[in-house]
């Protein structure tokens, strides 16, 4: 497969949707049909995935796990307010350039030659986006928490996301040697631009269903019994149904399960549940609400 601009795509990374699911399971990531289906499609269409959903539901882990099962290098761009081109794409190494100019002074090298020289690869500092494009080996590019950058900065990403290329005024256009699998994650703190969304496949990762959460606990917490994992998943589901400021995430479920293991608990009774709620819930009002709920007999 060739894209319009001539970048050559890898041969397909996955056989079919079920294959993605199975492979992910091998590395202890439990996917559902949506997650596996969209990852499969992203590979086939050569398109980035925009992953949204509540905190701690495995968005970042998904990219990491996909990198692992495809034997790709994971390149991560962590976004923050104020992130700019020089940190995301590339920067010229001014110090080195300056040094070069100074050492050459006196030799009668003319300026054009000098300019060609100091604006060459040697003086280029590659940042994650450019690194992902120029890599020879297969790459998974994770652009984490993209909603943190300003809308204007989003524009930096557009060229890469649709054409897998970067234009550097002094060097021309650099086209990808291989098409990286790109994941963008967002915690949805602001509306992303239409232009960005149009270029991506969209995946909403929500809190897992009961069965999947139990599987996650089993996979991630060593030595936990089926029955304890089941109880954990059920109680968490029950608590998520309350009207809370912040519902427990998967990471909190895992923390809770690990704590119960340390405390040597094999079945959870009301007392234990109440005493350890502070691991699942972060706000005092939420803890109070859940405690009250768990005590009422209805």
């Amino acid at each position, binding site marked *: 497969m060739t894209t319009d601009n001539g970048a050559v795509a890898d041969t397909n990374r996955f056989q079919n949707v079920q294959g993605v699911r199975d492979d992910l399971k091998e590395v202890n990531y439990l996917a559902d*049909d949506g997650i596996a*289906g969209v990852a499969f499609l992203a590979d086939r269409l050569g398109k980035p995935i925009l992953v949204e959903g509540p905190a701690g539901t495995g968005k970042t882990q998904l990219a990491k796990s996909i990198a692992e099962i495809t034997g790709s290098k994971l390149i991560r761009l962590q976004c923050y307010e104020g992130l700019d081109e020089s940190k995301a794409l590339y920067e010229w190494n001014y110090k080195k350039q300056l040094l070069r100019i100074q050492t050459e002074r006196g030799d009668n090298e003319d300026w054009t030659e000098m300019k060609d020289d100091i604006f060459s690869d040697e003086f280029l500092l590659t940042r994650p986006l450019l690194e992902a494009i120029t890599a020879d080996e297969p790459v998974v590019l994770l652009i984490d928490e993209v909603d943190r950058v300003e809308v204007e900065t989003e524009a930096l990403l557009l060229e890469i996301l649709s054409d897998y290329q970067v234009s550097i005024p002094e060097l021309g256009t650099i086209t990808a040697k291989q098409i990286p699998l790109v994941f963008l994650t967002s915690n*949805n*703190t602001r509306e992303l631009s239409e232009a960005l969304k149009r270029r991506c*496949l*969209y995946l909403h990762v929500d809190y897992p269903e009961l069965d999947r959460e139990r599987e996650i606990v089993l996979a991630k917490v060593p030595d936990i019994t089926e029955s304890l994992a089941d109880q954990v998943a*059920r109680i968490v589901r*029950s608590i998520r149904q309350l009207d809370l400021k912040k519902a427990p995430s998967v990471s909190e479920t895992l923390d809770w399960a690990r704590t119960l293991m340390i405390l040597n608990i094999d079945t959870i009774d009301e007392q234990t549940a109440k005493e350890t709620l502070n691991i699942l819930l972060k706000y005092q*009002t939420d803890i109070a609400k859940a405690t009250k709920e768990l005590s009422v007999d209805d």
Partner: protein
Amino acid sequence: MLELLNGFVVELRNAGLPVSLTENLDAMEAVQHIPIEDRDAFKYALGATLIKNHAHWRSFETVFEVYFSLRGPEYKIGDGDDETDIDEMWREMQEQQQQEGNGGQGGMDGMTPEEIAQMLMQALMNGDQGMMRAMAKQSVQRFAGMEPGRPVGGTYYLYRTLRNLDLDGMLDKMMEQSREDAPDDLTSLEERLEKEEYADRIEKFKGEIEAEIRRRLVEDRGAEAMAKTLRKPLPEDVEFMHASRDEMTALKKSLQPLTRKLAARLARKRKHGRKGPLDFRNTVRHSLSYGGVPAEPKFKYPRPAKPELMVVADISGSVAAFARFTLMLVYAISGQFSKVRSFVFIDGLDEVTDYFKATEDITEAIHRVNTEADVVWVDGHSDYGHAFEVFWNQYGKDVGPKTTVLLLGDARNNYHASQSWVVKEIQQKARHVYWLNPEPKSYWNTGDSIVGEYGTHTDGVYECRNLRQLEGFVEKLA
């Protein structure tokens, strides 16, 4: 296939979902990689290319079901010749029942209601998806009484099917069974978890029945016609005054991300791009430290200090939901105001500011507003005139040039005296006064609505029928 997909995309657009040309093309490419028989993956593939906003997912799913429900091996309707997976499942279940000595043969027709109930309970207790689906299909066949061309809606068939299955009693029976089966007494925690699990399964089973009815209706009437009857507004377009319970839940869900985004947007607005004209004196003053060179230009901030907000809301039946959402939205961005005070009324008026101060939990505060506020004076029918009078007498002194007052309600005054002079007084003292009305404009000033009379003394009356309009207003306000 492409034709089907085109019809599907057209319907999505009809339902208000924004699908661009690129996205349409992506979807066409996507379906070439995932077989339609793999229904879930197929659905997510289409979703990933066409839907970029999670709040739109439910609408998408409905349309998807209508357009693709008749595809895939499990879903063929019809009895006899072409055996489907589901029919096979049904046969297996029956054989099992027979071995246990309680059950007839063939379809459900040969079974007594008790036998059916028994079998359903077993399917639900086992929690087996396939079995529940098979049960749903058979139940619809036997009980819904669907006839081709009959012009009744899906809800009627749903009602008929559910009535015959007596699902209401099912949860209790299942709990009883579960208590019997347990070696020890169930603790209250176990009871709770068990009950939730069963309730969840029953809901899913109802969903299966609905889906089955829908499939049959689609077969009878065609996808296009069905899609049209099922078309529902997106959460942001749902009318506050006519929202069903489900819609209300969806609304509440979409409120949180919406307020979060709104708050972030407003915070950013405050931080950036706030420069006004050059502040000459300040620049000169600072230039002294640069030896008189005005190196660091200083600008005037064009916005006066944050306003103080007073919300006065009618919380009687028909407009209660609207008041609730407005209060939640306002408090979620209360950082944008120097102070927020809130008052609620029906025919009496009460200040509820403290409820919001006492807790970080807006939902809880709203709950207290609904249960504790003292808003009834005579008969509990809206009396704007009296409520406004009370407001003016008790709190009028607190309205000042920094105050923005929001009046919320449909201004249906039950033909009481309007006392609109209060609004006029407020307008004279306050910085701004606005009226937000959840009714469609075309209803204003009909019957006992006197929003026009109040409106003349405000800086504007705004139609806020849905979240989209409300958000628009609040953003302008902050």
